[in-house]
């Protein structure tokens, strides 16, 4: 059963076996596995439950309804929009549905450099297989690429780069192009329509939406309860309070809010909130002479691959991924001078676009500001800046090679680049906060796993070092950037972490 705040106007105090905080990629998997293992589970989710009938495909309605801070959660220097879902199903409801697992190299990197040797590559593969099956993962075929994706891939091919189509979790996709603001057809197999139904089918799970957890209560190395309040989704106004006692707690509030909750609760030790990776992405848009209609079809389905993965360094390089953008999002992410932008938008149907995704190194922090909200501090290192500019240049070259008449580069003041020679302008730019539009869809790493308390927040079973009846099962446990796309890595680790919980006695 999924119930909202209106169904418990007085609030509630309950006891259960397992309390899961957050219902996204990590929380949904945990709820399903733990309930299938016989445990009684209560999931607390701050966001509302939004079934497909309420997905209106209108940006101005869906960003406020489905996203944390309406999509306006920014780093403290205003440089990067850190996008996260705040809805039953978490970020998987608004994600681009690409499915990319953790590679052997990254797994080896974590094992050798961070001591995360609890699970083998075979364990990971077993977890990923169940996750893929539950979310209906399958490969996009070349014939399914819309013109935007096909042009990017063609450009990459012409430059002799590695190109490919994605694996994704869309089944029966009608190509509306609205993945970022929720699928009105349930074709995207988000956690809300895959793992949560699987959990509910056990009859042992209750999902309480519109319930914001404020902190954990703990006593002598054990978490005893969570306290919080019901919220009105539109403005976050506090409604009635609640308190949940449990034997086991799973924290899966995502890489920004999980460390925040631990911090305000005095849990997690010195490393909590540190080691944030954002995997920044910058947009590049191109103008073609004829229609591209990037906003229809499967949005992010083809890519140009310049990523590297080694056991010594983990992930590096960059990826260029075609992307669709609705008009409002297109306008605010295209950095052209404002007058040029309006002319550009009159040719919206001829616009193609991609995101340049750069796997970074952990280095940011999440702390609490004076309102108790997260303060996300993050600076692009010189190396990441250089890679980002390289990625932007390569993207522009791909679009020009595919026949674009011009490319809008993500730096204010730069006119459209109409030839390779114009790209020399990129030698003189730097990626500055609140100037180059950048997003992060993959925050991670703020409750790092590892064998040593102090250096890591959770142990290699994903249990809190200082309160082992609480497991963190979300994107915050990755020691370094897990993959170019994080939903399958989160689900896989949550799967393994939940199984580890089941291996121990319930109390």
């Amino acid at each position, binding site marked *: 059963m999924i119930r909202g705040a209106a169904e418990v106007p007085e609030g509630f105090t309950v006891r259960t076996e397992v309390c899961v905080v957050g219902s996204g990629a990590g929380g949904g998997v945990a709820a399903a596995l733990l309930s299938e293992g016989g445990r009684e589970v209560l999931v607390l989710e701050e966001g509302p439950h939004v079934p497909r009938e309420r997905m209106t*495909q209108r*940006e*101005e309605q869906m960003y406020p309804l489905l996203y944390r801070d*309406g999509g*306006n959660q920014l780093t403290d*220097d205003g440089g990067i929009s850190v996008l996260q879902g705040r809805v039953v199903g978490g970020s998987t409801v608004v994600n681009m549905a690409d499915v990319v697992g953790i590679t052997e190299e990254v797994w080896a990197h974590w094992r050798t450099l961070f001591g995360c040797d609890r699970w083998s590559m075979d364990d990971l593969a077993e977890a990923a297989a169940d996750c893929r099956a539950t979310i209906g993962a399958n490969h996009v075929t070349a014939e399914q690429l819309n013109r935007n994706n096909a042009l990017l891939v063609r450009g990459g091919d012409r430059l002799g780069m590695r190109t490919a189509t994605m694996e994704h979790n869309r089944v029966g996709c009608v190509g509306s192009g609205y993945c970022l603001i929720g699928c*009105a057809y349930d074709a995207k197999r988000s956690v809300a329509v895959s793992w949560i139904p699987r959990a509910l089918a056990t009859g042992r799970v209750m999902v309480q939406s519109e319930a914001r957890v404020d902190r954990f209560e703990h006593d002598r190395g054990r978490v005893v309860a969570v306290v919080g309040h019901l919220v009105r989704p539109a403005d976050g106004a506090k409604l009635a309070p609640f308190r949940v006692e449990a034997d086991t707690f799973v924290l899966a509030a995502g890489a920004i809010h999980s460390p925040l909750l631990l911090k305000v609760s005095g849990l997690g030790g010195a490393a909590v909130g540190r080691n944030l990776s954002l995997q920044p992405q910058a947009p590049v848009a191109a103008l073609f002479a004829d229609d591209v209609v990037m906003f229809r079809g499967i949005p992010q389905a083809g890519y140009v691959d310049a990523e590297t993965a080694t056991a010594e360094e983990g992930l590096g390089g960059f990826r260029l991924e075609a992307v669709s953008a609705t008009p*409002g999002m297109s306008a605010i992410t295209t950095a052209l001078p404002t007058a040029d932008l309006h002319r550009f938008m*009159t040719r*919206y149907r001829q616009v193609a676009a991609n995101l340049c995704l750069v796997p970074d190194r952990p280095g940011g922090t999440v702390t609490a500001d004076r309102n108790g909200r997260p303060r996300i501090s993050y600076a692009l290192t010189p190396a990441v800046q250089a890679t980002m500019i390289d990625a932007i240049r390569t993207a522009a070259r791909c679009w020009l090679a595919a026949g674009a008449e011009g490319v809008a580069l993500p730096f204010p003041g730069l006119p459209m680049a109409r030839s390779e020679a114009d790209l020399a302008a990129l030698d003189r730019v730097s990626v500055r906060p609140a100037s180059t539009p950048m997003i992060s869809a993959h925050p991670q790493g703020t409750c790092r796993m590892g064998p040593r308390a102090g250096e890591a927040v959770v142990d290699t079973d994903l249990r809190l070092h200082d309160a082992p009846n609480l497991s963190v099962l979300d994107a915050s446990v990755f020691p370094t950037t897990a993959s170019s796309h994080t939903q399958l890595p989160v689900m896989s680790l949550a799967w393994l972490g939940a199984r580890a919980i089941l291996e121990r006695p319930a109390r």
Partner: protein
Amino acid sequence: MNGPSRRWFLGGGLLLVGGTLVAHAVGHRPMEERASAFLGSSGRTTLESVLEALLPDGAPVGEVADGIEGFLAQGDPIQGGQLGLALTVLEHTGGASLWSFSRFSRRTLDERREILEGWRSSSLQTRRQIADAMRRVALFSWYTREQTWAAIGYDGPWVHP
């Protein structure tokens, strides 16, 4: 968004005093102050002067501003407050230069465009943040309006609840 520092505000305050004097001296007429439920009449005036500068010529800035205010009134008060603060800082420091002082909303349309465009690449982070916030609010509001879509060839949502 980081709040501007106290020192920065003090600087802005001094410019404001000078700006008011110079505005009187050169006879700039303020834009008509509009009643406003959320931002206050001064904030509303600045918002409209920003929209006029950032939206295409002839755009119905009053209507767009109404939409923004309605949105702010329903949403998260902290975010709304931050926008209000950004508008205040822009109004009282945006129009000031080495040679003249004027509130932002009393600048000519071309001057306002130049100021907002210049702030996007300013060496001061707070200015870039404010210019970015203004652009986001203005452009998002404009391009999510159904009335704008025909001109850009967007055929709108497929579902009609």
